[in-house]
């Protein structure tokens, strides 16, 4: 109880008591009972020609989570237009993190958006990749002194590819995808494992900046 007092806990996450149909009282701790408490484990990275083929498949089928986190997300829609047509590179948009592999952090990341980004990222199946779009993700950019945005994305989430600029044009984004593909094909697309292995560090950083954590440590 003491611990909770110095942290803000949303009312719906507080421990509550309900009476069961048979009259007994049940104590529900939403954060413990409704979310899996398991810790993630790194997956095994294979090798050999099969793995090379799979890496190629992973690279040629990039499913991007349709989640615009910042101003840079305005650069993503043009990719589906005839002018840029990302489909021909095997890049597609998906609506749910469960079916996406690539998360484009498009520009500055407000703290409350970071929380959502963490959640979405953790819900994506591995191997998964983060493409950081724009300068703000690298050093905060023009928001370097903002009270409300993070400065360095890789403090909080593992980034596979950076696309610098403010804003980078869609072409740059396509180039970024090409770069990511190269990484994956080279067998270097396993930052998800890195995240899991250094989970303690990432979580410390995340919790340091997100005051109203209000979610389990790992969002399955």
């Amino acid at each position, binding site marked *: 109880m003491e611990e909770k007092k110095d942290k803000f806990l949303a009312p719906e996450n507080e421990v509550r008591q309900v009476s069961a149909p048979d009259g007994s009282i049940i104590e529900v701790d939403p954060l413990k009972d409704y979310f899996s408490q398991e810790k993630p484990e790194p997956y095994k990275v294979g090798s050999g020609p099969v793995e090379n083929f*799979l890496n190629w498949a992973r690279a040629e*089928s990039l499913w991007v989570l349709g989640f615009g986190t910042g101003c840079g997300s305005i650069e993503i829609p043009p990719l*589906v237009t005839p002018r840029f047509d990302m*489909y*021909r590179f*095997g890049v597609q948009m998906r*609506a749910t993190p469960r*079916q996406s592999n690539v998360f484009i952090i498009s520009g500055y990341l407000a703290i409350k958006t970071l929380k959502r980004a963490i959640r979405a990222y953790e819900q994506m*199946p591995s191997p998964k990749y983060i493409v950081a779009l724009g300068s703000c993700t690298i050093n905060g950019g023009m928001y370097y002194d903002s009270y409300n945005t993070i400065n360095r994305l890789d403090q909080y989430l593992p980034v596979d590819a950076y696309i610098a600029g403010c804003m980078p044009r869609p072409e740059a984004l396509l180039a970024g995808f090409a770069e990511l593909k190269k990484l994956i094909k080279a067998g270097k697309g396993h930052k998800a494992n890195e995240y899991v292995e250094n989970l303690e560090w990432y979580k410390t950083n995340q919790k340091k900046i997100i005051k109203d954590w209000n979610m389990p440590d790992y969002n399955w």
Partner: protein
Amino acid sequence: MDYSITKFLWSLLGLFIILNWGMLMSSTMRRVGARLAGRIGVPMYQPWIDLAKLMALKTWLSHGVMYYIGPVFRLVGGVGMFLFMPIIFGSEIWSNYSFSGDLILLLYFQSFGMLGMAMGASDSSSPHASIGISRGLAQFAAVEVPMTLAVIAIAIQHQTFSFNSIMEAQQGGVLNWTIFTNPLASIAGMLAMLGAMSHSPFNLVKAPNEIPIGPPTEYHSSFLSVLRTNSAIIHVVEAALFMNLFFGGADTWLMYIVKTFFVYFISVFVGMVFPRMKVEDSVRWFLKWPTAVGIIAVLVAAYWK
């Protein structure tokens, strides 16, 4: 009744062909759509890559036993539909297990995979899944009305529910196809098909951003690969069903591929042209025009019987 290994292997081969044809057809259609929009579109092999990628993912999350079995049900539904329908007219090898039943069996077996999948998706506890399913079921019920009317009109016309007999009656020239001998039933049936294929404008079930793609919202990696395998199969099988009913069936694999392509193309074409409908609108629509055409078809068929 032939439960031999040879039969099984022939069916497996047929299934393999159909699966690949289904994938090819889907990428082709996507390219057609892309061209319409002035784009190049996905590579022809994209569906296979996607499938391989999905199988190559390393995270498998399960919401429960039914969640796990849901895609299995779905694929059994697709494969079963394939197995219960003869592929090539007049061919013993390619007759599959169609001796177990006929058109009626197929009509009801459609729902087998659907309901199984519905349970699996529900087990994921995501409200979006059940929203999608509820829309799908409502639309399905409405689609079934013109569909049933068309089937009944055909059954009256040919006095049979057997695929072989229905196809047999359509042999001997294009003008013997049901689309010409019973145009009203065919119109009703083809309009119903638009709903059955759940392409735009009848694809509110899987509204991508409103309810993140609906029922399969929680499915990922290998589970999603099973679902995509099924959708490749089922698109061909559905097209084949309508081909058998209205377009004289197929007596060679070439005819099979050509005809299924064009039947499928009809629904894609309509989808390119019309925007998505709300579910109440599509229910109203199906219960209005296609149903009216279907009723007239049945009455006409009954009159000429």
